[in-house]
């Protein structure tokens, strides 16, 4: 039985792993990917110590730090269930079953889908959930970004450099997100913003060639070959049984990252901690690990 299993290897999970390694805990990291949402981020200018770093570069630094200890990382394993049975916590994955005295859930969030006609048919055929990855394929093409928060702005800042013309379809009266990013987006020459607008359908033949939107009550067609979905995130918390969650599905934690189940801790974007930021997730990961360490020492 392990002292600790960390689920997820984004900023929270990786930071927890660094602390666990330094505490010489017997632990395991189980994760689908490395970096989580940070790996898909464009430019990062608010992680202390780096005035500028790209998402992939920051993840590279994180991973390097994690692997500088002899940490066992099970990458590409999807966690199916976490359940407490007696004194042990059982972690069932797509490949194996593990037991630990404590668990930190740091499984983050994933992109919300549009839920409109055409989304399934044209996924990867013009529809993308990762501007950082697929953006360069749309050079000199018209694209639309659906959403108006920070991740939509981030996608816009990447795409105005690549695409011919960028539409933003935002369902609120004005763009949200960070003021500095918003200014840069609003100043772009090859960009048009449709506020109070929602997407109705994605259209095409083999690939996407248009979207239908509702712009302030009127239907409108936009001719685009790419659609980038940035309408927010949902927590990856379905696999945890018996843990209290809020209405958004986020795992409830207290200031020591404890959940309502003894021995199960949670950190980062999967929790109800206010504000979802890389630096906050990292800090929460360290807190969760210190709490788990104390718990294991006492039980």
């Amino acid at each position: 039985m392990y002292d600790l299993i960390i689920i997820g290897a984004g900023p929270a999970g990786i930071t927890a792993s660094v602390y666990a390694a330094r505490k010489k805990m017997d632990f395991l990291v189980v994760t689908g990917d490395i970096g989580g949402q940070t790996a898909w981020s464009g430019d990062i200018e608010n992680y202390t110590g780096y005035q500028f770093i790209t998402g992939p570069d920051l993840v590279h630094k994180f991973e390097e730090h994690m692997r500088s200890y002899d940490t066992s990382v099970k990458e590409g394993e999807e966690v199916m269930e976490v359940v407490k049975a007696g004194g042990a916590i059982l972690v069932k994955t797509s490949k194996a079953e593990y037991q630990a005295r404590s668990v930190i859930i740091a499984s983050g969030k994933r992109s919300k889908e549009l839920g409109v006609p055409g989304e399934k048919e044209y996924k990867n055929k013009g529809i993308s959930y990762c501007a950082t990855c697929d953006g360069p394929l749309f050079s000199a093409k018209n694209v639309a970004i659906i959403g108006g928060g920070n991740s939509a702005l981030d996608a816009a800042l990447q795409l105005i450099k690549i695409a011919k013309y960028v539409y933003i379809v935002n369902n609120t009266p004005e763009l949200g997100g960070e003021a500095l990013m918003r200014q840069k987006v609003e100043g772009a020459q090859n960009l048009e913003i449709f506020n109070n607008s929602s997407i109705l359908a994605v259209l095409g033949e083999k690939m996407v060639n248009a979207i239908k939107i509702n712009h302030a009550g009127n239907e409108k067609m936009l001719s685009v070959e790419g659609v980038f979905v940035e309408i927010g995130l949902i927590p990856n918390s379905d696999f945890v049984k018996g843990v209290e969650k809020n209405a958004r599905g986020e795992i409830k934690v207290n200031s020591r990252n404890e959940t309502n189940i003894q021995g199960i801790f949670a950190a980062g974007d999967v929790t109800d901690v206010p504000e979802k930021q890389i630096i906050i997730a990292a800090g929460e990961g360290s807190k969760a690990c210190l709490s788990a360490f104390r718990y294991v020492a006492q039980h």
Partner: protein
Amino acid sequence: MAKNVKVYSTPTCPWCVRAKQFLKDNNIAFEDYDVSSDRLKADEMVKKSGQMAVPVLDIEGQIIVGFDREKIKQALGV
């Protein structure tokens, strides 16, 4: 016999980085096409895969979209 492996990728895509790292870890030689700068290869990739997403791996003519470790292992026989 070494297999003919091609990777179509963009420099910023995390799954591309991991796919290439996976090939290197398994000592598989491959040709790497940066489709963000090479239009011809980008078109070739879309034609082969029928999709607009990276990474795309071409392993002896077998097309794999995304970093699907198990499929890649099978295609390579590792």
